[in-house]
């Protein structure tokens, strides 16, 4: 399963036509203690780099953008009760939504893990 990143620090893991989305460890660290995660509704149609949800920490509230276009088929409800999971496991247990991908060609607009690591060094 390959993992791709956006400049806004979201990741997507692609398996077949399904993409699992979350925010990166770097983003979780920068935001500080996460206090609230707003997830999309199942069935919501999202555009690449369009709004998917939002996340609040003690420092700031930020939008979460969708790395790919598609339809939301599953959300990680557990984060609504336990937002701290984002700080503990941003790139695994704290996945936020699964989307049915509509256009795989959009992957070319994303960064690979290696490219993302290089990008982080420039910030």
């Amino acid at each position, binding site marked *: 399963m390959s993992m791709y990143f956006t400049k806004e620090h979201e990741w997507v893991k692609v398996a077949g036509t399904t993409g699992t989305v979350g925010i990166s460890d770097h983003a979780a660290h*920068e935001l500080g*203690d996460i*206090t*609230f995660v707003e997830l999309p509704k199942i069935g919501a149609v999202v555009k690449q780099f369009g709004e998917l949800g939002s996340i*609040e920490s*003690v*420092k*700031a*509230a*930020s939008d979460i953008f969708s790395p790919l276009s598609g339809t939301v088929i599953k959300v990680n409800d557990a984060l609504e009760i336990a*937002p*701290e999971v984002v700080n503990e496991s941003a790139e695994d247990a704290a996945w936020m939504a699964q989307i049915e991908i509509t256009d795989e060609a959009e992957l070319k607009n994303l960064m690979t893990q290696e490219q993302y690591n290089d990008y982080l060094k420039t910030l």
Partner: protein
Amino acid sequence: MQLIYEQSTPGRRGVKLPKTDVPAASALPESLLRKERAGLAEVSELDLVRHFTNLSRRNFSVDTNFYPLGSCTMKYNAKVLENAAALFAPFHPMTALLPGGEEFCQGTLGMLYDLGQLLADITGMDEVTTQPLAGAHGEMTGIMLVAAYHAAKGNKAKKKYVVVPDSSHGTNPASAAIAGYEIITVPTAPYGDMDLELFKKAMSDEVAAVMMTCPNTLGLFNPHIKEISDIAHSFDALMYYDGANLNAIMGKVKPGDIGFDVIHVNLHKTFGTPHGGGGPGSGPVGVKKALIPFLPQPRIVMDSAGKLLLETANPGTIGRTANFFGNFGVMAKAYAYIIMLGREGLIQVSEQAVLNANYIKEKLKGHYDLPYDMTCMHEVVFSASKQLEHGVHAIDIAKFLIDRGYHPPTVYFPMIVKEAIMIEPTETESKATMDAFIEVMIEAAQTAESNPQALHDAPLTMPISRLDETKAAREQNVCCAW
């Protein structure tokens, strides 16, 4: 310190009323009567006075200490303004709304009318409504006026977007979203203002308004503001001026002269009235001629004989936005403030506010990272990134300042600056006060290197130590503990 409920002694009371010697009014229905006592604290009047006096002494205010909270303009609120507001206390706001009531209220309506005229002059607008009750309410009113303007031109469906820079106050996109618009956020360029090229790309016929704070939340005046206005107008998008930072430009620039069509003014920031827990706010909204038909009602207008009347039957109006005439007492104070200082005085206010902020900037820039190193306006934004190398965050410096008797600056805003520390001294502070503050800020920077733990432990001198903000935000259970 005990809670007032913990001091309660059964049977003790502050007031003993005589037994009624007239028949009691008809009893309330059984369903509305209490089944058990209200559970109020039973204390004497003296117990009560001591309790609340002691509690108030733990309060932090601009009357007790320096309060450099960025973007909030925590200037000293002159006590004489309270006297001005008290002059109006005998008048009931309903009088003016009764048939023919205007006749009896020429003085009170005159104060509101004159305040509107003065604010229109200061901001370069054609008319001002004084109804909105606070800044965000003013924004909401302003955006509704924008929407009414586009709807009247038959463009309601076409105008879908409001453009904001990423340094904007969070209330800007929030107000626009509540009014039904989608938000386009434009990033900040390295020169510290909305990126002009990206702004041009974001603009189209579908944009209803561009909301700007100028100077922005980095304390910087946008050198391209006229060009931005012209571009916006070429798409029939209106320019909205967030007046939060008006304290920087009075008598220097009128927003109306650089292309703004709508503005809200925070009387409790720029015009010396208390804010926060100290009293209600007030957010008058000024507009250019084209938007006057949509202003809230009742609108105070002057007839040819110089008599003030209330216009209440305008079909284009967005309606009433507040009871009666808004927060009248706040407006009376702001009116007195403007009259007291006069044109020259207000110019001096802005000059001194800008000078003070630049003084702090120059004195502290060797000790804290200054991401946008240029002449600032009324506030300056540092970053605690140097201190972060020692594990010290902006929040730790903020808590340390509390121990030293200073209200912390605004931290973590604007969000585009990492570990932001936003300092706004205002014009009412002396050089000596600022020098003492600067010294403590330098001490904090040195402590970050020599003993970071001391900053993590702060505050140590307060009635309560560091609060667990994460726990407070995650577990929002507010209930009575007694």
